[in-house]
């Protein structure tokens, strides 16, 4: 498995080297692009836990991304307008502190994943794809028509939230935070895949009956995977909102769910660095193709088709060859 490891190390080196180079040459915007790629990679890594390990084809992961975004938006909105979130039973103020926002984003999106999972995991296969899509639409329409937090206009947060000891307004520092999160989650993901839970989940994906006969509940295993997955994607949503200093219902849109899935698949399903490679490629393409032609979606579509039809295993698969998932 050394080729996949070499690929991963190369990707890691690029994630450090490109922004460092951009910082030295004053290409600030490249850092912003890299931040976007890293945050998408984090969201896709979240989906990869459900998809790669648990075999759950969720076409509604934008729900968690959006919830994370709105967790940031709502907390920061109340902080910037000096109004409390609620006065009853106790006064809860808003906050501009990233660690608190992250915690809330993770908890709320995990809770949402739990509730959605309890309903959606009653179904399998295509029904699961469709019901997650429907939950996404439900949140999308709700966010559009609920007036309290901007409705379809969304909410602008004027100053990026803070992290103790850092100046998050400086692009490279914010990038560092996002990259740190990505690395932590990747490490966690690798550990998870090799843990007893990960092995059981893998077994539940491939042979649910057998798992059941040894006394494990496959649905419960998948539910836990979905909750972890949702929490990670929610965290990414909070970071994305902070990158843009803006949240809006488009964070819930089904196109975004589709894009998160595209990151995972073009990178390589179930590969540790698949989502990272996919997200980076997507952001680079969006940037380069978008610069050449206004019709770049056509070419993106053609490229995706080729990857699905001829390049199984995604980017990681192409470079590192097929093989067991996660070492």
């Amino acid at each position, binding site marked *: 498995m050394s080729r996949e490891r070499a690929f991963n190390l190369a990707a890691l080196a690029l994630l450090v080297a490109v922004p460092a180079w951009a910082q030295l040459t004053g290409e600030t915007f490249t850092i912003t692009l890299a931040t976007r790629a890293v945050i998408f990679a984090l969201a896709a890594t979240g989906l990869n836990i459900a998809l790669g390990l648990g075999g759950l084809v969720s076409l509604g992961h934008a729900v968690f991304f959006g919830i994370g975004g709105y967790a940031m938006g709502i907390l920061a909105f109340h902080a910037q307008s000096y109004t409390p979130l609620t006065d009853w039973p106790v006064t809860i103020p808003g906050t501009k502190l990233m660690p608190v926002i992250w915690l809330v984003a993770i908890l709320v999106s995990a809770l949402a994943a739990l509730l959605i999972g309890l309903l959606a995991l009653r179904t399998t296969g295509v029904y699961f794809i469709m019901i997650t899509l429907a939950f996404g639409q439900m949140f999308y329409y709700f966010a559009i028509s609920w007036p309290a937090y901007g409705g379809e206009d969304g909410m602008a947060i004027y100053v990026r939230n803070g992290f103790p000891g850092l100046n998050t307004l400086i692009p490279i520092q914010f990038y560092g935070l996002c990259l740190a999160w990505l690395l932590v989650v990747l490490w966690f993901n690798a550990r998870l895949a090799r843990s007893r839970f990960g092995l059981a989940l893998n077994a539940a994906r491939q042979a649910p009956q057998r798992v059941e006969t040894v006394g494990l509940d496959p649905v419960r295993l998948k539910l836990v995977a979905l909750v972890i997955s949702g929490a990670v994607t929610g965290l990414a949503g909070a970071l994305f909102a902070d990158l843009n200093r*803006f949240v809006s219902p488009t964070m819930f849109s089904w196109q975004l769910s589709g894009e998160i899935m595209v990151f995972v698949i073009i990178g390589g399903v179930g590969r540790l660095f698949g989502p990272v490679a996919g997200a980076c490629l997507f952001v680079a393409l969006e940037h380069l193709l978008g610069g050449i032609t206004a019709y770049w979606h056509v070419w993106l579509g053609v490229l995706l088709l080729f990857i699905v039809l001829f390049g199984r295993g995604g980017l990681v698969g192409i470079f590192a060859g097929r093989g067991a998932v996660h070492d």
Partner: protein
Amino acid sequence: MRFKAMALATVVAALAAPVQAEVKVGLITTLSGGGAGLGIDTRDGFMLAIEQAGRDDVEVIVEDDQQKPDVAVQIADKMIQSDKVDVLTGIVWSNLAMAVVPSAVGQGLFYLSTNAAPAQLAGPGCNPNYFSVSYQNDNLHEAAGAYATSAGYKTAFILAPNYPAGKDSLTGFKRFFEGDLAGEVYTQLGQTDYAAEIAQIRASGADTVFFFLPGGMGISFLKQYADSGLEIPVVGPAFSFDQGILQAIGAAALGVKNTSSWSKDIDTPANAAFVEAFSARYDRLPSIYAAQGYDTANLLLSAIDKADVNDDAAFGAALMEADFDSVRGKFSFAPNRHPIQDIYVREVVQEGDVFTNKIVGTAMTDRANEYVDQCKM
């Protein structure tokens, strides 16, 4: 990104000017997806004025926001951080403007709005570096209310999509409509079937129907309304009767009254010249978005002649003077940097086989906006 700057910043390249551009303008607008028609007109109107001026000290960088707020923010970041633009402009949609404008003007850039002008940026959120060259979002709806009152309608049925701009629209209409409401309905954003609402209109017995349904929603509504056999007169803001979409509605729109700050038959030399030049250059009639883009570019050019864009106070003052030949005729800025202008009533007519608008009256004269007093700069 370098390709893009070269490919699209046509002005400098076309004239092969050796001089370094003095003012860099970032034009962010919608060039792909369902709303692309509006952005394309904005861009073409803006670029027409720049081309006509034939100057080599203004460079325009154009990018597509795909009608997505996060993409717009990303482009704005790129234009500010990488291209080092001095002025941003071009955004069509209010929600995208809210995502981009506060942070851009906060970083000391100028933003000139070619269309979107939400209430938040006109009232307490106003900024000396933010100018709306189009209108304040409420204006056309207010004018529709004023027109419905002056036309003697006693009861109105009003509808708009359930999102902030829709609510602002109905509020604006009610502000100047003195009759009673026979019904007030919020539809779903992106809704394509209005049979249910039309049935409610039929049952309401209203004298007139006011609707704000931009883009495809308005096309669907008007076609279905015309087919329902209802004879209650309809009034709406210009957005659903724009040159770009009128052909798609066809005869169903004939005779409908709509309110607009611009029309192609405003009888001034500047407007006649604009309509002729635009039609000749792009082989289609201009829309209100094209007119607003054209005015925005001319306003910008007039200010560049008077002041240095890096001197915020002087450049802001130069823009405030509005010393340019607006295609709308009279044009000046209220203290909160939104236009004072006349709002016309137009009627949809057929000229040959083209559907277009004709001015039939003036709904409001020298209208500024409701938020002037709330703006403290």
